[in-house]
C-alpha cells in the first residue's frame, strides 16, 4: 500500500488553470467582439451635393422596417423640372464596395437639370455591418484624397445572421416557388419582389419594390461587382424592355472600356434585373464591374488588393484563358477604374433611355470614367471635417431602437 502512487488530478481540473483559460477566452472574445462591434457600428459619411432636396428612409415604404438594421437612407435630388425619375442602388451585396463608393461620388457631385434622382448607397444595410463569413476580409477600404483618407466598409454578400437567422435547408423563393441555395434567403438580390410579412430580407426587397412603384421610377439601376472568373462580369444585365438600351449604352462605352450586355433570363427568379421590371413600371439595369478581390483562387485578401485588384494567381488564370475579362497584373482592376466604369455606365443607360423613350428625360451630371481616370477618385470626395462642408455632411447610420432600450424596457416587453 505504501508503494501506491497517489493519482494526480488532470491538469485541466485545476482551479487555477480553469481561471487562466477563462481569462484567455475573455480576452480573445473581447478583442474579437471589438472588431465585430467596430464594423457593425461604423458610420460612413459624405458631403452631400448642394442639390440634395430630401432624405428618405426605406422604412418610409414599409414602416415595419423602422428601427431595424434593414432601414437605410435614400437621398433625393429633385431638379424641380418635370422629367423622368431614376433610382440608383449600391451595396445590395456589401462585399462589392465599388458600388457604394460610386453612389458616394454621385451623392457628392451630382447636378440634376431635369427630373428626379433617388440614390441609396447601402442597399442591404444589415449585410454591410458584418464581414464575409470565412472570407478573412479586411473591415474597411480607404480612399486617399488631398485632405486625408475617406474610409468605407467592406461588408458581406448576405444579410447579417444577427438580423435574420437561422437559414433553412432550402430557400424557396416567393412567389415563384423556385428552390435556391439556403443562404440566398439572406441575399437581397434573390428575394425580390419580396413580401411585406416575410423574412427581414424579403421585407427590405418588398420595400424597394414599393419605392419603385410609389415614386413611379422610370429607370432603376442596381450596381454590383463580380469576380473575373464569373461569366457575367463587366456587363449590363437587362430584361427585354430595357435590353436594347443596355446594348446601345454598352456599345457607346466601348470607346473607354469593354462592356458586355446580357438578357435577364425569364426563368431565374428573385433578381433585380428580372423582378424590378416584372413587378413595377421601371426599366431595370444591373451593372457588374470586375472585382478580383472576390475571386476564389487569389493570394492574400488585403485592403491593398481591394484597392488595386492585382493578383499573381489570377494573372496565371488569365494566361490560361480562364477569366471573362482581360486581366493584366501591371494594371490590375483598381477601385478608381471600377467606380469610373459604374459612373459612366449609369450615365449612358440614362442618356440612351431618352433616345428609346422620349417621354423619359433625365438630365443629370456627375464625374465620368474619363474624369476619374484623369483626376483620381479622391479628387471627387470632399472633406467632411472642413468648416465650409459642415452643413452638408450626411452620416449613413441609423442606430436601431433596440440599442436604446433600457433593462426596464426589455423587462416590460417581456411581461407583455
Amino acid at each position, binding site marked *: 500500500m505504501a508503494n501506491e502512487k497517489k493519482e494526480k488530478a488532470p491538469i485541466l481540473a485545476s482551479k487555477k488553470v480553469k481561471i487562466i483559460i477563462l481569462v484567455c477566452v475573455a480576452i480573445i472574445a473581447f478583442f474579437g467582439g471589438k472588431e465585430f462591434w467596430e464594423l457593425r457600428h461604423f458610420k460612413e459619411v459624405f458631403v452631400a451635393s448642394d442639390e440634395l432636396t430630401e432624405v428618405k428612409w426605406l422604412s418610409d415604404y414599409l414602416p415595419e422596417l423602422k428601427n431595424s438594421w434593414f432601414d437605410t437612407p435614400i437621398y433625393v435630388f429633385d431638379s424641380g*423640372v*418635370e*422629367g423622368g425619375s431614376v433610382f440608383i442602388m449600391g451595396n445590395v451585396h456589401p462585399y462589392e464596395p465599388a458600388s457604394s463608393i460610386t453612389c458616394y461620388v454621385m451623392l457628392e457631385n451630382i447636378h440634376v*437639370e*431635369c427630373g428626379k434622382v433617388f440614390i441609396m448607397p447601402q442597399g442591404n444595410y444589415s449585410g454591410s455591418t458584418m464581414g464575409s463569413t470565412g472570407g478573412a476580409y479586411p473591415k474597411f477600404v480607404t480612399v486617399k484624397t488631398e485632405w486625408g483618407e475617406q474610409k468605407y466598409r467592406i461588408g458581406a454578400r448576405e444579410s447579417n445572421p444577427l438580423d435574420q437567422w437561422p437559414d433553412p435547408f432550402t430557400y424557396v423563393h416567393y412567389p415563384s416557388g423556385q428552390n435556391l441555395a439556403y443562404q440566398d434567403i439572406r441575399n437581397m438580390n434573390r428575394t425580390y419582389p419580396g413580401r411585406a410579412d416575410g423574412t427581414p430580407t424579403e421585407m427590405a426587397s418588398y420595400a424597394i419594390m414599393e419605392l419603385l412603384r410609389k415614386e413611379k421610377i422610370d429607370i432603376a439601376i442596381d450596381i454590383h461587382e463580380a469576380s473575373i472568373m464569373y*461569366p*457575367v462580369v*463587366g*456587363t449590363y*444585365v437587362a430584361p*427585354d424592355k430595357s*435590353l*436594347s438600351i443596355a*446594348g*446601345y449604352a454598352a*456599345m457607346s462605352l*466601348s470607346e473607354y472600356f*469593354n*462592356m*458586355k*450586355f*446580357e*438578357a*435577364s*433570363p425569364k*426563368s*431565374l427568379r428573385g433578381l433585380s434585373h428580372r423582378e424590378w421590371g416584372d413587378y413595377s413600371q421601371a426599366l431595370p439595369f444591373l451593372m457588374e464591374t470586375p472585382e478580383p478581390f472576390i475571386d476564389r483562387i487569389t493570394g492574400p485578401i488585403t485592403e491593398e488588393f481591394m484597392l488595386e485588384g492585382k493578383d499573381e494567381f489570377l494573372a496565371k488564370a488569365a494566361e490560361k*484563358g*480562364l477569366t*471573362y*475579362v482581360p486581366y493584366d497584373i501591371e494594371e490590375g482592376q483598381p477601385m478608381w477604374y471600377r467606380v469610373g466604369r459604374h459612373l459612366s455606365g449609369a450615365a449612358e443607360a440614362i*442618356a440612351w433611355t*431618352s*433616345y428609346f423613350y*422620349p417621354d423619359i*428625360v433625365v*438630365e443629370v451630371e456627375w464625374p465620368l470614367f474619363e474624369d476619374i481616370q484623369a483626376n483620381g477618385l479622391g479628387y471627387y470626395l470632399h472633406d467632411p471635417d472642413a468648416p465650409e462642408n459642415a452643413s452638408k455632411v450626411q452620416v449613413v447610420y441609423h442606430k436601431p431602437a433596440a440599442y436604446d432600450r433600457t433593462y426596464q424596457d426589455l423587462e416590460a416587453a417581456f411581461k407583455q
Partner: protein
Amino acid sequence: MRKKLFLVLGLLLVGLLTSQLFAVISGDPVKTYKLPMLITNAGQGPGGKLTRQIVSDSGFTLDTEFFYLSEPEPKDIPAGKYGCLLVVIGSTDKGLGASGITIDDEIERLQRMVAHCKEINLPIIALLMEQDKRSTIKTNPNERCIDLICPNAEWIVVIKGGNSDGRFDEIKAKYNIPLTVYSKAPMDLMNIFKQMLPK
C-alpha cells in the same frame, strides 16, 4: 419640358450624325442582298435582339422588310421567303444554363439550320458584334458558334475588336469568304445595313 426634350434628342442626333463622319468600315466591300432579311442568333446571346433594334433604327420595318426569330428550325425558314439570313454570333454568359439549353443543343439546332439554308440556297451572313465574348479557349461556346457559322457564310462582318487575334482573317483566307470589319457601333452597322439592303 418640351424644350428640354428637343434639346436631349437634338444632342443625341448631332452625336449620331457626327459619329457617321468618323465611321470606319474596312476590308471587303459591303455585299448587297434582297429584302426581306431574317435575323437570328447563334449561341443564344442578346446580339440578335440588339441587331433587330439597329436594323429598325436604320430605317427598315420589322415583320415586313426584316424578321427576327431567336431559334428557327428548318420549318420556320421556307424556301423563297427571305432574301438572306443574318446570323448574329454571340453566346450568352447568363442564359444557357438558366434556360435549360446546353451549348450542344444549340450547336445541333444551328447545324440543322445551316444545312437547310444550303439546301434552299439562302445566303448566310455571319455577324460578330460582341467583341467581349471572344475567348482563347477553343471549346468556348462563342468559338464553337464561330467554327460552325463562319465557314458556311457567304460574307462575314466583324467588329474590329473581335478580330484582334486575326481569327476571322484566318477563316477568310482558308475558306475564301469576304470579310468586312467595322469599328464604331452602332453607327457603322447602320451604314452597313443601309448599303447591303437597297430598297
